[in-house]
């Protein structure tokens, strides 16, 4: 018999592992908290496996890679092959590991406020549907956007029940209907616009917070690449959002005058540099239509100087191809259609079409009712049964009031949900769906890109796939015509083969749609100031979108609540941004709780006094702003609200700190023209220099790329088992995050500007924390990592005091971690007990794993093979992990860049984290 040699063994092991990658998750594992006692043959305890899938935490549907240990997903990263995310993952995506093991997950079906068994639930569902059909009433499905097989399935399922496709109603929290409307007016086209940020020499955002909403990962990456190629970006809007902070300058205009500004820019561009392809007739018409918007008028209305308007237009014409984006949700008022139209015209005049703004033929999907139509029919008693498929229309913001009222007229409602949300609470029957990480499916964010979704692990709880539940009901009713025979998994596997699942994404050529400015563009311009509702003299309400609440919902995730908003510093609560002058008029100080009164009600939130918001504006996170509104529509700077002090105080921990750098040059910047910092002088030192004989692990952080999204923070929480400490302790300054975004808001040469600085342990060569530790609990490894040995730490906290960067964290308590959440712990990282100090370890577990892998393969570690969790998740690749000792590594090359500097260099700590200064306009 042939002896089983090492090579043969490794070969077959690799084959087994390879097949397991695609089929492993089908193993019939027992449904218990510990996934298995006897592991399946292909699972090696202690070895991680990676599965590609598609993130469904928000409608963007980015690619995702899940790291699975012993049958449980423990960490998420992006899918490098996915054209949207290209390896990055936003904080909301990161937090889906938390929702997977979330305390709010449904463990069984519910009816009448108590759990029931599946057989009873199946019967109730079939009975409810049968009753509706027998009564001759409609069955409708309200679903989240399901751009893929499930959408077809829902239509077919309704068809099997004899219902038309219009009964499939799509509820999208982040829909921006004004963009389509504006495009229709400007272009007369329904084509799908796809902005190509990286190709633009200049991006002008008209209140479009593109790094925070819509497809933030793709846009942020596009912006980073655009900047790296020397591009510039400008932001017009009522406040400094993260997008504005990531731009070169923030141009604050009088709230509501954005349309006038864009029209003025159109006029100037048309006058000085009309594109040759523009039809003469249209040109003449546009010149005539735009005539009233001369720089002087625009200046008066916007509060900018006429010169500034002309200069802006000149900059736009000089930097073709340009790209104008917007309006975003913050400007989503009654004028949003016209603003979108003007933006599209400006894009046309700047030659963006086909270059920086491509158009694709839209996917063909059967249209359904809109939400208003559904609510109307429900109130009229036409709906006999309504199925909610992964939507929470009643919990979004303050809820969809009309639908909530109409629900009383619907005899049977069933909610397919992962958690017991507000909608599920009101449903007759609640059917627990798999979490998306446990589900089969697909999602196509745009034509030509299909994200394939496969379960990365067996379900944790007794849940079923939504489609299987609906299939079961149809079968029970005997109405299966046009429905598939097998299970939902069979359906998906039938469409996407093993290779598709390995890649996690299926790409095809999308057909471009030709567009041109329509002759009737800008034909009716009612340029009156937008209506201002509410008390005269009140504040203009701005609803600020946030990356933490992508679809407008207050995030349920404790993790996302815990990570503070980088610009305001508030966590676990909303806030009201007020300009210092406005705050002074109201007598409000930082942290005072202010009650804003709107048409619908009152919202009391702590005030954040900052010059990063236009005077007279009260900017509130969109989710909280919704509570002030009388309709689902966003206020779009058209609602005035009253403001009064409540007398309470609820300051953040940061309120004690400064939002200014006090001239300390922490988040540094260089000019676009000469992106070089003066070299640092080497400082004398008493001790012999520290040697790193083999490696010196470190990171570079490119401030030019960072958009402050917080994905690094979220990834670090998940990777390193960081505890969520809760609102009270965060406010007391006990948040455990190992990497934080520091934000400084200061006056700059072109107005107020924000600088972002992601700060983790700097892994100093001369670390002040190391020398002061009496027990050697922290020490410097030969490879440059400032390591922490938890069992040796007695908690003197001297290290924390002596860290000039303030990045060490202390376990004030044994932070609670309940039930399922324990399953999501990364087994490679110890959970710290109370009383010990901790901080960024440079993901030492990943470094070790990478080195072990290299050793097993008898080779050196390859550059890029080891990546820290923060760097892996960063959507813009702002963080680069690598060996700074190896001059050929990407990190070392970046560290040798002219923009490179180390934080607090004058202390001679010689950090292993190197920052690359941001490029900015310099005075």
């Amino acid at each position, binding site marked *: 018999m042939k002896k089983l040699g090492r090579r043969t063994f490794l070969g077959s092991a690799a084959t087994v592992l390879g097949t397991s990658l695609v089929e492993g998750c089908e193993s019939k594992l027992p449904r218990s908290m510990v996934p298995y006692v006897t592991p399946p043959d292909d699972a090696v305890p202690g070895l991680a496996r990676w599965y590609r899938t598609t993130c469904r935490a928000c409608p963007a549907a980015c690619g995702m890679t899940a790291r699975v240990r012993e049958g449980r997903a423990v960490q998420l990263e992006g899918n490098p092959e996915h054209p949207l995310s290209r390896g990055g993952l936003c904080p909301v995506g990161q937090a889906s590991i938390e929702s997977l093991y979330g305390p709010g997950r449904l463990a069984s079906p519910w009816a009448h406020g108590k759990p029931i068994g599946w057989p009873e639930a199946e019967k109730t569902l079939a009975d409810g549907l049968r009753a509706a059909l027998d009564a001759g009433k409609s069955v409708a499905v309200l679903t989240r956007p399901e751009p893929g097989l499930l959408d077809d399935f829902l239509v077919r399922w309704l068809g099997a029940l004899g219902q038309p496709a219009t009964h499939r109603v799509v509820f999208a929290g982040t829909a921006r209907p004004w963009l389509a409307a504006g495009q229709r007016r400007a272009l007369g086209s329904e084509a799908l616009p796809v902005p190509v940020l990286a190709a633009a020499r200049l991006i002008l955002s008209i209140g479009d917070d593109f790094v925070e909403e819509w497809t933030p990962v793709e846009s942020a990456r596009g912006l980073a690449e655009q900047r790296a190629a020397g591009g510039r970006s400008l932001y017009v809007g009522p406040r400094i959002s993260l997008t504005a902070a990531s731009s070169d300058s923030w141009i604050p205009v009088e709230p509501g005058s954005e349309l006038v500004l864009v029209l003025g820019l159109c006029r100037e561009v048309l006058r000085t540099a009309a594109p040759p392809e523009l039809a003469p007739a249209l040109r003449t018409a546009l010149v005539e239509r735009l005539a009233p918007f001369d720089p002087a008028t625009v200046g008066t209305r916007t509060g900018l100087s006429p010169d500034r308007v002309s200069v802006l237009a000149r900059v736009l014409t000089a930097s073709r191809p340009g790209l104008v984006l917007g309006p975003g949700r913050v400007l989503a008022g009654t004028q949003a259609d016209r603003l979108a139209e003007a933006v599209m015209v400006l894009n046309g005049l700047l030659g963006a079409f086909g270059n920086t703004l491509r158009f694709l033929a839209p996917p063909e999907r059967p249209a359904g009712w809109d939400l208003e139509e559904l609510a109307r029919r429900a109130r009229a008693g036409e709906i006999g049964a309504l199925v909610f498929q992964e939507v929470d229309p009643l919990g979004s913001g303050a809820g969809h009031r009309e639908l909530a009222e109409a629900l009383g007229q619907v005899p049977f409602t069933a909610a397919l949900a992962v958690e017991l949300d507000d909608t599920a609470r009101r449903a007759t029957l609640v059917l627990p769906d798999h979490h998306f990480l446990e589900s089969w499916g697909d999602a196509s964010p745009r034509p030509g890109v299909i994200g394939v979704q496969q379960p990365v692990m067996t379900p944790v709880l007794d849940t079923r796939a939504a489609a299987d539940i609906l299939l079961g009901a149809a079968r029970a009713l005997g109405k299966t015509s046009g429905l598939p025979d097998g299970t939902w998994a069979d359906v998906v596997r039938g469409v996407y083969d093993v290779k598709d699942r390995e890649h996690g994404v299926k790409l095809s050529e999308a057909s471009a749609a030709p567009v041109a400015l329509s002759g009737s563009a800008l034909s009716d311009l009612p340029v009156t100031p937008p209506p201002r509702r509410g008390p005269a003299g009140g504040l203009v309400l701005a609803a600020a979108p946030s990356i933490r609440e992508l679809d407008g919902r207050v995030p349920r995730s404790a993790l996302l609540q815990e990570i503070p908003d980088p610009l305001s510093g508030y966590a676990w609560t909303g806030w009201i941004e007020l300009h210092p002058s406005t705050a002074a008029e109201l007598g409000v100080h930082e942290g005072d709780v202010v009650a804003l009164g709107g048409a619908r009600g009152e919202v009391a939130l702590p005030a954040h006094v900052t010059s990063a918001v236009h005077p007279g504006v009260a900017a509130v996170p969109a989710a909280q702003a919704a509570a002030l509104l009388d309709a689902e529509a966003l206020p779009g700077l058209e609602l005035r609200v009253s403001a009064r002090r409540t007398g309470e105080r609820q300051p953040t921990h940061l309120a004690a700190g400064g939002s200014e750098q*006090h001239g300390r040059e*922490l988040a540094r910047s260089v000019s676009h023209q000469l992106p070089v910092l003066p070299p640092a002088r080497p400082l004398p030192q008493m001790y012999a220099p520290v040697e790193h004989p083999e490696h010196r692990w470190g990171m570079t952080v490119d401030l030019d790329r960072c958009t402050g999204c917080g994905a690094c923070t979220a990834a670090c929480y998940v990777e390193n088992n960081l505890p969520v400490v809760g609102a009270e302790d965060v406010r007391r300054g006990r948040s455990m995050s190992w990497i934080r975004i520091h934000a400084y808001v200061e006056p700059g040469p072109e107005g107020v500007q924000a600088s972002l600085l992601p700060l983790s342990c700097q892994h100093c060569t001369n670390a002040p924390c190391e020398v*002061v530790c009496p027990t050697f609990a922290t020490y410097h490894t030969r490879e440059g990592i400032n390591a922490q040995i938890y069992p040796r730490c007695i908690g*003197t906290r001297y290290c924390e005091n002596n860290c000039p960067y303030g990045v060490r964290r202390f376990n004030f308590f044994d932070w609670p971690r309940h039930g399922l959440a324990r399953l999501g712990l990364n087994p490679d990282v110890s959970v710290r007990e*109370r009383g010990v100090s901790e901080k960024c370890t440079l993901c030492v577990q990943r470094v070790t794993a990478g080195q072990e892998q290299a050793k097993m393969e008898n080779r050196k570690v390859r550059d890029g093979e080891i990546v820290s969790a923060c760097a892996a998740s960063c959507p813009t690749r702002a963080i680069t992990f690598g060996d700074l000792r190896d001059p050929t590594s990407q990190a070392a090359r970046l560290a040798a860049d002219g923009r490179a500097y180390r934080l607090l260099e004058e202390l001679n700590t010689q950090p292993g984290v190197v920052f690359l200064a941001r490029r900015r306009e310099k005075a």
Partner: protein
Amino acid sequence: VDTREVIRIERDIIATMSRTGWRYRVGLGLSAGMVVVGGIAWSLALRRGLGVFGLNEPVMWGALITTFVFFIGVSHSGTLVSAILYFARSPLRAAIGRSAEAMTVITILTAGLYPIIHIGRSWLFYFVLAYPSQRQLWPNFRSPLTWDVFAISSYVTVSALFLYMGMLPDLAMLSRRVNGWRRPFFRALSLGFSGTDAEWALLEKAYPIFAGVVIPLAVSVHSVVSWDFAMSVMPGWHSSIFAPYFVAGAIFSGIAMAILLLAGLRRGYRLERYIRPGHFEMLSKLLLAASLVMTFTYATEFFMAFFHGSAAEAEVFRWRPTGAYAWVFWLVIACNSAAPLACFWGRVRRSLPALVIISVLVSVGMWFERFLFIVTTLAHTYLPQNWGLYRPTVPEVLICLGGFGWFFTLFLLFIKIFPSISVAETMEREHAAAHSAELEANHA
């Protein structure tokens, strides 16, 4: 010396040990009660974690470390003053030496509790001790905290021996005069000292060695404690003036505490004969001198902060008198720099109530002075986005008060168990006085 005089001295001093008035009982009860309450507060921290304190991200050291430094400071006066007085052959020593030395030992025992209470895992405090362990790992000798352990343990050892040596003749003598459990106890402690010339000669030889060692040790221990701060890189801490500044502060607060204790002893035990107004006047002059040194140090710190050009350092010193802790700053200036200036007036120096008030103010001021430099530095470090504030919580305050309770309990027990005034030295002094009077009479 006439025998009656000897008997009277012995009786007075033995009386302090045997007479237990209601004041003593109430005092001891209150002190012990404070210890119990402080202990309960500590048990809360042990059970739940240090989160019950007000500490937070930038301010990791607070009221407990403040109290630690305060007690280390107080400890100074004792042994140091006693040793200096010994070399100066000061008549004051006979009166205050014993209680001052006892105070030193007790304050160090009190101060030593705080680092243990304050650390995150109190049950592992022994990790900082240099002992040959299975892990074959010594403490980090570059860490000032390790130096602290050595400095403080040496100081407490030498101080305790100094106290004990000085007490030997008394113990031997009293073991024959007292009854009850003290007799065998004192006899055992007296190590067979019988008062022979040879024994006295040996003691006279050994005593100056201890006194000599204890003075540099006292200076060094406070310098080392100051290095906990000065060796860091933090603005407002990293300063070469810290060691002398701490020593001066320690002497300052120690003298204030000595005045308070002596005033209490004098009143409580009717020791007016032994502790005289002149003694207080001498102490008040020392207090004034120390206060002037402190004021000079404060001024120097501010000058250096703005002179050496670090933005962070300048910010800390700009913030101290104007920021959130401005009231602490001005309280410190009022108590430490302004109040002792009253000692320029002879009437104040000779007025015991006035001196007691000033000493209380100085003690309060010195506690807050430590609080000020610890907290304001940590609250305003290099990165403005890390700044924060700190306020002690109820458990912290109770633990701090418990420390004072612990101190007073031990002190009250000490004066009840041991002679609080040196019998031998008092007699020696009386003898010398009588002798010189005799000589003068003969001359005449």
